[in-house]
């Protein structure tokens, strides 16, 4: 397992690893996500940088032992900066034959695979479509194999607690976690505390799990003497001093929205409807009512956004959240928010599409929907977050734009960011500039005769109309989805008026002040720039970093403000000979860049439901440089090891 993680450049000296990729894989009932989550926590507490990739089936309880029921959790951690969950695991823990079959192709040659032989029964081998047990046919020869009966060892370990075999086997994941903790020299204390808290009312279950954890740990100590198992201590990374915690994208967005509402001085109304992978935001916010949050689980996606619009109309910060298909349903109501010029934040946790698509897999294919996807000329700002930690700031930014410009804003995230965890330096809320909402309380214009009047669509310097809460004495007025007369807001279909109002809506959004685009890595001009947005940040950054270490003249630009785009982005891109745009879609941002800046943006697309591998991106970058050894040009092949085998998609 002492091979280098894929994140490091190919020509780096092969020394002790500064990063390791571990994948826990098992049946969806085996608790692999829990194991991964707790291992993540212990990694964070050990001071390593990390990134995770939970990958689980859409089915809640897929039939046991089947290929499509395999659930996996991958973590990449190290004593250096970590940008992705890692291309290929160094260590694979396979709890049953199906998990082995689905995940083995990803394992690095020479990597370590830990196998629970207790699950390698004829029946389970059949379910995994193995004719012969891979333990017997020599097919595992290119890896280090540590195969033993974890099931039996777990039953043995929890025997004193008098559990039946079925219950005892549920502690298998803790046994495995114990072994993993030993492998990376981690304390068991925090996990024991967590188990005690989790099973507070069932001390027997807590103690059984702790016994399993300890047994796995002890096994490591004993087994070290012989065989492939080695203990590795990963020193902490040198990071900026401060207070840290781990955070998932869904948590970060929820907290960012709470912070955004506070910075605006508003109460928050959140309208949602259950949908994967967006529901986590509803769940988090439902527990934060003390922060002035009202959550409303509506009867459908349309009602969720409409209720949020109603709340914004009444003076709260309306927020709604969904994923692709649900966002499609909300589309008409977004037009209403655009027409009535009310603040609203729409969080879109993108997933594979179209239609129901791949509910639990990630994709960036809603960019067209976000930027262009409404009837009429319906401009709407779009902000995208690039990592779980970044999602916090982006949520605040979306709230700021919504409130300051009286407009709906779409915040793009995706299934990967929503579920993935990373260490996060806890920010000081006071470090964000407040943007207090202002409500009109008096008439805002004069009639020809000098008397006061109300103009609900009179615009300020930003092009925003006043926010007027119903209930304010004397400011009664009507708004709606029919075209509004300039200033007065009365119904008006006149040609000149529609032209003027269309222009006003478009220009208001185009003139939104967004920060200038910065270069994430590399120079501001040169041979090649890789332009990304959203969750491709990690792999692009690592691939560009690796390529630059090879001496290639390549830069990385990562765009947060998808609409309007930063004003300097066009000139910046024109400073590069080539523009490469990797996206987990068929080339949507590429279209926007070409359209807006007339630059020859080249797409690099992937729609496998899996994030980009660093090696894929490095290969694509290499194509632009003819002095790279082993680079013959030609098409960039998608990294096959990232794809599940065909059988896995039964």
């Amino acid at each position: 397992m002492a091979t280098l993680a894929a994140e490091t450049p190919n020509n780096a000296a092969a020394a002790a690893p500064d990063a390791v990729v571990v994948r826990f894989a098992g049946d969806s009932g085996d608790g692999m996500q829990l194991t991964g989550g707790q291992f993540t926590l212990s990694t964070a507490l050990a001071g390593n940088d990390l990134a995770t990739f939970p990958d689980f089936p859409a089915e809640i309880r897929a039939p046991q032992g089947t290929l499509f029921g395999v659930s996996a959790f991958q973590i990449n951690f190290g004593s250096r900066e970590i940008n992705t969950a890692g291309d290929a695991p160094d260590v694979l823990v396979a709890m049953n034959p199906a998990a082995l079959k689905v995940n083995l192709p990803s394992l690095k040659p020479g990597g370590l695979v830990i196998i629970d032989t207790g699950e390698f029964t004829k029946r389970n081998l059949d379910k995994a479509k193995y004719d012969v047990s891979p333990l017997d046919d020599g097919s595992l020869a290119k890896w280090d194999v540590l195969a033993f009966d974890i099931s039996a060892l777990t039953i043995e370990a929890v025997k004193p607690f008098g559990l039946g075999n079925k219950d005892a086997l549920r502690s298998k994941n803790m046994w495995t976690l114990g072994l993993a903790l030993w492998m990376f020299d981690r304390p068991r204390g925090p996990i024991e505390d967590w188990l005690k808290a989790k099973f507070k009312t069932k001390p027997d279950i807590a103690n059984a799990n702790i016994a399993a954890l300890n047994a796995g740990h002890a096994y490591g100590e004993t087994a070290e003497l012989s065989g492939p198992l080695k203990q590795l201590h990963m020193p902490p990374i040198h990071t900026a001093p401060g207070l840290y915690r781990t955070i998932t994208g869904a948590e970060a967005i929820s907290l960012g929205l709470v912070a955004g509402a506070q910075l605006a001085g508003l109460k928050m109304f959140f309208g949602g409807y259950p949908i994967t992978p967006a529901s986590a935001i509803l769940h988090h916010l439902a527990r934060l009512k003390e922060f002035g949050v009202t959550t409303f689980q509506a009867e459908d996606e349309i009602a969720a956004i409409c209720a949020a619009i109603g709340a914004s109309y009444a003076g709260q910060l309306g927020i709604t959240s969904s994923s692709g298909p649900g966002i499609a349903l909300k589309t008409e109501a977004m037009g209403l928010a655009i027409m009535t010029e009310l603040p609203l934040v729409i969080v879109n946790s993108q997933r594979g599409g179209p239609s129901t698509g791949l509910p639990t897999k990630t994709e960036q294919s809603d960019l067209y929907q976000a930027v262009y996807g409404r009837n009429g000329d319906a401009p709407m700002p779009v902000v995208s977050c690039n990592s779980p930690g970044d999602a916090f700031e982006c949520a605040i930014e979306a709230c700021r734009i919504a409130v300051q410009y009286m407009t709906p804003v779409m915040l793009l995230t995706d299934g990967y960011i929503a579920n993935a965890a990373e260490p996060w330096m806890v920010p000081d809320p006071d470090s964000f500039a407040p943007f207090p909402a202002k409500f009109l309380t008096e008439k805002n214009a004069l009639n020809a005769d000098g008397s006061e009047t109300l103009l609900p669509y009179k615009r300020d310097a930003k092009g925003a109309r006043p926010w007027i809460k119903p209930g304010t004495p004397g400011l009664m007025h009507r708004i709606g989805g029919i075209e509004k007369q300039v200033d007065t807001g009365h119904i008006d279909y006149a040609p000149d008026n529609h032209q003027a109002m269309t222009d006003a809506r478009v220009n208001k959004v185009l003139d939104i002040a967004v920060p200038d685009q910065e270069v994430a890595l590399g120079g501001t001009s040169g041979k090649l720039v890789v332009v990304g947005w959203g969750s491709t940040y990690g792999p692009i950054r690592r691939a560009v970093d690796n390529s630059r270490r090879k001496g290639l003249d390549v830069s990385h630009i990562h765009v947060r403000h998808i609409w309007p785009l930063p004003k300097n982005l066009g000139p910046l891109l024109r400073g590069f000979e080539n523009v490469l745009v990797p996206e987990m879609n068929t080339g949507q941002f590429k279209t926007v860049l070409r359209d807006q800046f007339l630059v020859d943006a080249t797409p690099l697309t992937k729609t496998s439901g899996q994030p980009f591998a660093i090696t894929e991106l490095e290969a694509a970058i290499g194509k632009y440089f003819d002095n790279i050894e082993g680079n013959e040009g030609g098409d960039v092949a998608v990294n096959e090891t990232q794809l599940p085998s065909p059988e896995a998609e039964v």
Partner: protein
Amino acid sequence: MNEMTKIETTLKDWETDQEVRWCPGCGDYAILKAVQRTLPQLGCDPSNTVFISGIGCSSRFPYYMETYGFHTIHGRAPAVATGVKLANPDLDIWLVTGDGDGLSIGGNHMMHVLRRNVNMQIMLFNNEIYGLTKGQASPTSREGTKSPSTPLGSYDHPARPCAFALGAGARFVARGFDVSKNLPDVLKAAHAHQGAAFIEIFQNCIVYNKDVFDDFAAPKGAGDRQLWLEQGQPMLFGDPKTGLDKGIALDTEALALKVVDVVDGDWQSAGVLVHDVTNRAVAHMLVEMPFGPFPMALGVLYDDPRPTFEEGVIEERGRSVAGKDVNLARLLAKGQTWTVEASEGHPVD
């Protein structure tokens, strides 16, 4: 909302300067006037009143009311109104919808606003036709309705708005019609009800479905065709000139309503039912009572309040907030954290 402060207004105070754009002779005019006449009598405050509508002829209503108004999108007014009410429970909300807006495209939202019991008055103008789109059959159109989309006559079975409302869990169900002099009383009862108050208002579309309600709404013979329900009063009807000589009684064997003759005003011995607005079982029979063999049941059919949705939301918020630490900095730092000291760590290679 709780007890509101009554203020003095006149009908004029509730009129906007906008030209009313309904067809001349449309029943909507009468309803608009009835509402504008009723609100001053209730002591309502225009600044605290919000009219929210969907799409259709009826949904233009807010533009003519000098109150806050939100003309939303087709079918979604109940959802928007729910958000408004939750954000500011003190607002007095009137929802205006039609048979297409409220029962076809917006049927789902109508069901849920009633089920949740969000405190507002819901006026569903039922003209049994799509007017603004030029006369297609609607979900309340009678079987056989000939229209541009049903040239040989419609064959789908019409929805019954009051039965729908009651079935969805409404705690206030009433009926009236555009030109009825009793409409203001129905509106007042709806306003007095704490919770979602559903009012079906038959409305004459003089262009696409002219006089379709004349069989019971026409003044001539109205006494025999209209059963105006009043709390605590026997369910009597008939020509007022000759005396109310018919009543509604319960056929206990069939467990159904029946029409009985009342001789010499002795409704008791005829077994005529006394209207109890809280009797849900009888309400179910009244909303299903077919016109023809029976008169049209009008007035307040059912009125039995229970806690409103916004009361639940407020109560839950109170419970959630009790004893909680409301500090954003501490919230952000919640869970298991670790501190990286300035001197610690290893250099990046």
